């Protein structure tokens, strides 16, 4: 069947392999020659470098320069950065101290990749004053401290007296939920190019999610402006200033980002090496280095208490997350942001506590905080429903939040109940078999569901739209394409706002000299930048029509400008007369261009609350003896306001659901507790979902109108697919086996050993057998 939906604007370049990612750049693309740099990382977690022997490395033919802390440029303090990642607290190669395993200790520059890689292996680093690192929350209990902020959310929240309400509740749940650390594992490894310009500025090629935030970090580190740091950045953000400064960033498309491509260490290293080497360099990471040169999602352990009153309404939510962060950087998973806005409830208490571990700094990852939070809350909702003899879906309907429970504001739009209905119909929720019955293959059948949620925000953004004399339009907005389809969506918004066919729109996004744009982060990029384009288009049309009705020899003389509009490249009068836009523009006296700035209040001035919602339903099959689980079917219904580009939007949601499944079944980067290293630092061992793991999936968007909050009617959708599947699968596993697992991923050993509520079942007997096995004694590491 021919698919009539629009393909992506950059789609052809992707299916032909012609798309240029950073690693694909050659001197003919950049206009300058460059050498190849490769980092060397520490094999020690906590200690000091006592000696670096580069003699063998320098003898490799082709090697030109080796940078260590002894000869690296001294950088200026960076931060505080909005990304809150490591470089705000720890800059690379500034002294001999080692804070975590895998920290950069040297950069080898050669005239070719093979020589640089071979020489990097020959750099010998010796360490002294080494200490055993603390790398898990269990080891770090004495390091826990309360924090005021988590991500961009508050670290502490209270409503009523939640602890007292909990004590008085008719039904209580008091459990602890654990989420393992894991990495983004984008398939693009990581490359950056830097070249120092004659005027003392630097030209950089990188793949970042936020052009101007990336360049802010570089500018601060090298003293190239932004001396007022955040203040100066805020000015750029709020005024939408297009002035580039001396950091000239070319942002190439990201080969996957998922939160990791923000203020990256290797981008700074490229600029440092180029400065010291006296020639441009291209730094190339290895796959293993991505585990310590980029941020990741840190470990989270949360105690959750939920109280329910006799009318089956939530009376208290007490959430106490312990969040691991790294040796530097201040990013804390905002675990408490979502639960307090999800269901109606009488009281809540939230306090994040944070432990600084001897690890690489943590950072943003798709569904920051919310994916861990929803796992706990939605597992708890399922468990509480069972305690009360209620259908899990019915219990959620009873506690539906008609207004935002945290601030009491009405939702601009909310179609969660319709999502429940449509998702339930898609999977056949009402007619599902009894949990724990056997299918034709002798597997235990289980069904589970969860609510999902995404706080779409509007961030400050700006865009310049220019109508060219030939009736085409140029849209300049430094927005970052990371695979979400933002280029297609922004093209569509521009085409619709201007009344032009898509093919007449040219989008410019690559450089920091383009107008300041919001980053591709937190389900905000398309909406924030789309708003700026929309407003620029409105301003241009208003100016054009005002001029047009004064032109005596033109069709629309003395028309009311408010009756005019542009459709398919023609100006249309209230009387239906049509004149091609290019005919009119040929007479317009000067360039018709407008630079619009939007979102300065971050959408917080609105009297409405804004969020996307969804409902995930899943069916699993579990082997009764081995507890091997296969997700057979996963469906979702989502309400995300207006969908601009259906093809990439559906794709992103389905991909998010697969991420959620991966979080449930596989995703964990494991630590060696003695060495402090990530053990499974490869794509073969840090398991992510493959094609064969992916179940039969289906999704629908529930139509909704969010125009009361913004004329574009948009909300965020990048994360709403991801946050529900993990608890839905855990709940389905319970339905199948009677075993309640509260640790992600749902490891096979936990599936086997967790006792079952169904005392007479085979699953229960298997767990009892495991309980009889002797506990192995840990091997002493000498």
């Amino acid at each position, binding site marked *: 069947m021919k698919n009539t939906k629009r393909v992506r604007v950059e789609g052809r370049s992707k299916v032909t392999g012609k798309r240029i990612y950073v690693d694909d750049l050659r001197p003919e693309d950049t206009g300058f020659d460059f050498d190849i740099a490769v980092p060397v990382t520490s094999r020690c977690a906590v200690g000091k470098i006592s000696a670096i022997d580069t003699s063998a490395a320098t003898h490799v033919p082709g090697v030109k320069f080796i940078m260590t802390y002894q000869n690296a440029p001294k950088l200026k303090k960076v931060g505080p950065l909005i990304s809150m990642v490591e470089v705000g607290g720890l800059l690379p190669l500034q002294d001999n101290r080692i804070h975590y395993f895998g920290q950069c200790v040297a950069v080898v520059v050669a005239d070719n990749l093979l020589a640089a890689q071979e020489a990097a292996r020959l750099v010998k680093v010796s360490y002294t004053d080494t200490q055993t690192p603390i790398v898990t929350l269990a080891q770090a209990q004495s390091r826990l401290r309360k924090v005021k902020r988590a991500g961009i959310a508050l670290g502490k929240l209270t409503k009523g007296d939640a602890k007292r309400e909990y004590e008085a509740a008719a039904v209580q749940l008091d459990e602890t939920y654990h989420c393992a650390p894991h990495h983004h594992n984008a398939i693009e490894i990581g490359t950056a190019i830097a070249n120092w310009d004659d005027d003392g500025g630097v030209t950089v090629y990188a793949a970042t999610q936020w052009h101007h935030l990336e360049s802010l970090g570089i500018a601060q580190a090298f003293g190239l402006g932004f001396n007022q740091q955040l203040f100066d950045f805020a000015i750029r953000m709020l005024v939408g200033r297009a002035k580039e400064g001396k950091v000239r960033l070319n942002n190439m498309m990201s080969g996957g980002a998922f939160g990791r491509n923000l203020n990256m260490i290797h981008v700074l290293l490229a600029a440092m090496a180029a400065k010291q080497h006296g020639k441009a360099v291209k730094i190339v990471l290895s*796959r293993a280095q991505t585990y310590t040169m980029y941020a990741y999602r840190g470990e989270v352990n949360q105690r959750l208490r939920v109280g329910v009153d006799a009318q089956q309404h939530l009376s208290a939510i007490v959430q106490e997350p312990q969040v691991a962060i790294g040796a530097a950087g201040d990013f804390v998973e905002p675990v408490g942001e979502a639960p307090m806005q999800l269901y109606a409830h009488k009281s809540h208490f939230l306090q994040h506590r944070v432990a600084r571990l001897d690890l690489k700094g943590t950072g943003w990852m798709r569904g920051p905080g919310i994916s861990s939070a929803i796992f706990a809350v939605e597992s708890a909702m399922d468990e509480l429903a069972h305690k009360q003899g209620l259908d899990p879906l019915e219990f959620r309907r009873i506690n539906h939040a008609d207004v935002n429970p945290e601030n009491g504001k009405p939702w601009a739009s909310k179609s969660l109940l319709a999502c429940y209905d449509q998702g339930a119909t898609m999977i056949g929720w009402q007619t599902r078999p009894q949990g724990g019955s056997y299918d034709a293959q002798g597997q235990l059948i289980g069904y589970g569901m969860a609510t999902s949620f995404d706080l779409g925000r509007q961030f400050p953004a700006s865009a310049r739209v220019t109508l060219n004399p030939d009736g085409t339009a140029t849209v300049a907005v430094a927005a970052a394409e990371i695979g979400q389809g933002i280029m297609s969506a922004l093209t569509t918004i521009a085409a619709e706002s201007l009344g032009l066919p898509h093919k007449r729109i040219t989008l410019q996004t690559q450089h920091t000299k383009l107008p300041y744009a919001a980053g591709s982060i937190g389900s905000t990029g398309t909406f924030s930048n789309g708003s700026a384009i929309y407003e620029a288009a409105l301003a241009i049309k208003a100016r054009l029509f005002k001029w047009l009705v004064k032109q005596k020899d033109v069709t629309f003389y003395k028309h009311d400008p408010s009756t005019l509009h542009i459709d398919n490249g023609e100006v249309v009068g209230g009387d239906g007369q049509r004149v091609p836009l290019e005919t009119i523009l040929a007479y317009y006296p000067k360039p018709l261009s407008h630079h619009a700035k939007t979102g300065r209040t971050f959408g917080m001035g609105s009297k409405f609350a804004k969020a996307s919602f969804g409902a995930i339903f899943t069916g699993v099959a579990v082997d009764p003896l081995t507890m091997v689980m296969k997700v057979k079917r996963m469906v979702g219904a989502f309400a995300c306001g207006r969908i601009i580009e259906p093809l990439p939007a559906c794709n992103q949601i389905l*991909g998010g659901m697969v991420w959620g499944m991966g979080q449930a079944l596989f995703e964990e980067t494991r630590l060696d507790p003695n060495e402090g290293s990530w053990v499974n630092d490869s794509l073969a061992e840090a398991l992510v979902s493959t094609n064969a793991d992916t179940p039969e999936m289906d999704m629908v968007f529930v139509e909704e109108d969010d125009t009361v909050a913004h004329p574009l009617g948009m909300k965020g959708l990048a994360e709403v697919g991801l946050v529900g599947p993990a608890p839905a699968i855990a709940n389905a596993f319970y339905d199948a086996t009677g075993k309640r697992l509260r640790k992600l991923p749902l490891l096979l050993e936990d599936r086997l050993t967790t006792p079952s509520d169904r005392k007479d079942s085979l699953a229960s007997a298997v767990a009892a057998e495991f309980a009889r096995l002797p506990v192995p004694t840990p091997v002493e590491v000498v």
Partner: protein
Amino acid sequence: MKKTFVINQTEHTLELDPRMTLLDLLREDLNLIGTRKGCDFGHCGACTVHIDGKRVLSCLKLAATVDGEVTTIEGISQDSHLHPMQEAFLVHDGYQCGYCTSGQIMSAIACVNEGKATTREDIKEAMSGNLCRCSAYTNIVAAIESYCNNHTDKQVAEQVAS
């Protein structure tokens, strides 16, 4: 050492570093950048190319050991004329960031050629050596299915051979 390669039907005689993988040869020496490096260890499939029509992970193949005609993503279409598998990926949005896409398409063509695209389950299994972290798997399978449905076995064989 000197070695002659046939890559996308063009002969190249090159002075070869014996450490060089086929992937690095393609990317660094021949500027065929459409074949991507995702791991350099044979884990992700982004570097999949064909040697005599069979899929090979070019990062695991030392260039010196290449024995046969190499086809890369640049070799399956000419100018503006897409290979029907590329067309299917485009229309079905069988990608997001696009970084793994060259490998997915090369693998998909071979997967059909190997006779492994008979059922959805078979396609999923045969395509599981190609990771897509954006997880566009549903659309990738839809693209391959539509390619198979739009082409008779004979047409498929001809396209794959050409």
